[in-house]
């Protein structure tokens, strides 16, 4: 559209020039002849500009060449050429040239522009006439038909931008190459028509190349790329998009991508686009799509809003890919996780039931035994009954302990962190396990370092860890012969900054194969163990900012060790505890 307007403008300018010519040269003797000549020239210009207008970029150079030739012929010139002078390069490049029959062609470059003033004038926009052409410009041979010696040369600047000067040159008989203003402006018009055609071709070619490059990039993507309007109408899709849906570009562009989404998921997708309209942002969205084979797949899209001048979204550009496989794997994983969670819960429930039924069973049987003894023997059985009652008492405590333990496991009771003396903690737990230790014939020794710095912790949780380690240790010594069943609990302060507790047993040790996984869930060496004790212990210790580890002793058995950070100011913490 711009090009045809330009052509119209050029046509108008040419006509105006002729009118001016008529007014000025009206009285001159050769007016009639000139008028006819320039009118012919005007037709020629129109013809040339028309021929260049619809020229495909690759043909423009050829047509410019032909146009120059027609100008040479029409004006009976020796030659006509387009040249470019680039800044800092002291030579002129001849981009296009045409010459009359018998005139030698110009070289591609004219060696040196030896006339700085000439170039300066051209840069200023003045045309320059040279009466005797420069020696490096080959001239018609002196013996030639039409004239002798050097022919005058007219140089007209056409455009000058960024220091690049382009112009047109005419060489021929002085009469034709006149320096008159009218003549120059007409001739300049020739240069303008030709050079604008050339630059348009160059721009178009560059555009074409870059578009091709861009399209190649876009089409060779395995990612799907599209652009769509806020109502989800597709305005662009790349090859990968077409391949995915097995449709052509024509079939896809103009359709709403919502149609490619299963009905059940359309609302979600629509809502996502609406939310992007309200708050333009690059956000990943995943939705189902109808695949060409009729199955339902999953795609992941990132849409970028393209904003108009008014700041509103007029289009989205989006990059997407198929994530069906990932989605399916994830679904399977979720199902598995759910199933295993249920299994674990079931196992946990069974294990809890077992733990509670044991003391309840003992209580019930003890009660019934006591009743039977009362019925049968009366007073003589009282010592026995008293023993039974104390057992019942103990079993009730055992049952409530189990429940307490479960409560602390299940309810995420807010931990009560406080400064703790780990020596006290050890003494408490050891007192607590003393009956079991007697039963298992395990000797429990405490090796406690006095004036241990306090640690900041949750008492019940840390008691659980220690209890767990002690019970494990006693369990490991079941097969150890009695005199060697010794469990040592040692506390130590390391560099004033860490408090260490070690539980050292003389049991069967830990199998090397299990050692690396020892603190993972569901790893157990006990037949009735759930394998949660040590993993739970690790969670507790780590939540206290500590570490827990285990190793086999050189002289048999194993040592479990945990380290907790010491409170910086023990005195302060003691005061806090006192208050």
């Amino acid at each position, binding site marked *: 559209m711009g090009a045809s307007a330009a052509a119209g403008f050029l046509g108008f300018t040419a006509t105006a020039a002729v009118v001016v010519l008529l007014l000025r040269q009206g009285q001159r003797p050769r007016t009639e002849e000139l008028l006819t000549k320039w009118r012919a020239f005007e037709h020629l210009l129109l013809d040339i500009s028309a021929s260049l207008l619809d020229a495909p970029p690759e043909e423009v150079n050829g047509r410019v060449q032909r146009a120059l030739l027609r100008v040479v012929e029409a004006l009976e010139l020796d030659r006509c050429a387009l040249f470019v002078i680039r800044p800092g390069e002291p030579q002129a490049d001849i981009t296009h040239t045409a010459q009359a029959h018998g005139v030698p062609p110009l070289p591609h470059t004219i060696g040196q522009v030896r006339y700085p003033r000439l170039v300066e004038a051209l840069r200023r926009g003045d045309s320059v006439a040279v009466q005797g052409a420069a020696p490096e410009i080959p001239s018609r041979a002196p013996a030639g038909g039409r004239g002798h010696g050097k022919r005058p040369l007219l140089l007209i600047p056409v455009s000058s931008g960024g220091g690049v000067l382009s112009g047109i040159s005419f060489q021929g008989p002085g009469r034709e190459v006149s320096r008159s203003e009218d003549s120059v402006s007409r001739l300049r018009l020739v240069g303008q028509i030709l050079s604008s055609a050339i630059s348009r071709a160059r721009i178009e070619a560059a555009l074409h190349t870059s578009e091709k490059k861009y399209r190649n990039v876009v089409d060779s993507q395995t990612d799907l790329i599209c652009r769509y309007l806020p109502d989800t109408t597709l305005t662009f899709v790349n090859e990968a998009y077409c391949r995915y849906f097995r449709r052509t570009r024509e079939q896809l562009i103009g359709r709403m991508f919502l149609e490619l989404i299963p009905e059940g998921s359309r609302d979600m997708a629509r809502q996502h686009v609406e939310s992007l309209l309200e708050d333009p942002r690059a956000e990943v969205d995943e939705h189902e799509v109808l695949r060409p084979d009729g199955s339902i797949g999953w795609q992941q899209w990132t849409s970028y809003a393209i904003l108009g001048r008014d700041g509103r979204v007029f289009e989205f550009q989006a990059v997407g890919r198929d994530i069906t496989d990932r989605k399916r794997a994830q679904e399977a994983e979720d199902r598995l996780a759910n199933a295993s969670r249920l299994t674990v819960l079931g196992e946990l429930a*069974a294990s809890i*039931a*077992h*733990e*509670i*039924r*044991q*003391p*309840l*069973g*003992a*209580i*019930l*049987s*003890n009660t*019934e*035994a*006591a009743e*039977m*003894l009362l019925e*049968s023997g009366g007073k003589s059985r009282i010592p026995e009954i008293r023993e*039974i009652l104390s*057992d019942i008492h*103990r*079993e009730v405590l*055992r049952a409530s302990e189990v429940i307490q333990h479960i409560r602390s496991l299940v309810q995420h009771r807010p931990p009560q962190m406080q400064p703790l003396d780990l020596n006290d903690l050890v003494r408490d737990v050891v007192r607590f396990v003393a009956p079991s230790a007697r*039963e298992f014939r395990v000797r429990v020794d405490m090796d406690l370092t006095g004036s241990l710095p306090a640690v900041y912790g949750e008492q019940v949780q840390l008691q659980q860890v220690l209890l767990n380690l002690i019970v494990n240790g006693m369990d490991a010594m*079941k097969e150890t012969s009695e005199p060697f069943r010794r469990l040592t609990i040692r506390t130590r302060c390391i560099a004033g900054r860490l408090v260490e507790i070690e539980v050292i047993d003389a049991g069967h040790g830990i199998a090397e194969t299990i050692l690396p996984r020892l603190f993972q869930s569901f790893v157990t060496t*006990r*037949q*009735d163990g759930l394998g949660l004790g040590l993993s739970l212990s690790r969670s507790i210790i780590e939540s206290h900012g500590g570490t827990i580890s285990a190793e086999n002793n050189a002289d048999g058995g194993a040592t479990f060790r945990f380290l907790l950070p010491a409170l910086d100011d023990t005195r302060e913490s003691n005061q806090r505890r006192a208050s």
Partner: protein
Amino acid sequence: MMSTESPIIRVVDDDQRFRVAVCRVLRAAGYEVREYPSAGALLLSDDEQAPGCILLDLRMPGPSGLELQAALARRDRCLPIIFLTAYANVPLSVRAMKGGAVDFLRKPVKREALLSTIRAALARDDERRTSREELRALRARYDLLSPREREVIHHVVAGRLNKQIASAIGAAERTVKAHRARIMVKMQVGSVAELVRQVDCLISGSRELEPQAQPVRQAAVP
């Protein structure tokens, strides 16, 4: 014939406190009780000949109750087993019952349920012991028979007449008659009906009793 020894109830449970409590009930009910902390302890030291039953926990360190059941079955001990466990599910109880358990009880167990199951188990043990005794006596009597008499006895049990038997074994009818009389004396029976019952016992008992039992049924085939 009833066994004269008093039954012993073997309680196998790793939970000492529960074991003590259950044993108290059993003792208060007048039973003789022996305690074992593990399946292994029972296998090592129990007098299998003494009548009674086993009250067995399912989950224990070392061999489990089910493993003990299987081991006892292999060793051809026939003490009835009652499972008593805090940890119970259907597959486990099915396995236990298929293994020949008398019952599968859950902790906590009420006295009535426990004692009635114990009684059932002891009755079963008693019955088995009695039938074992009978079978043993029967086998002893049967062993007294001569090969010829054993041949004759199966014809008799099959309901054949003396004449038919005589022709089948190629002997005089009078000889068959004499064999018959001696069989009745040796087997200590007064009628053919009683003899038939005894031979049936031998046939069915031989399979569960001594492995060296003679293949009676084969001999019965003419």
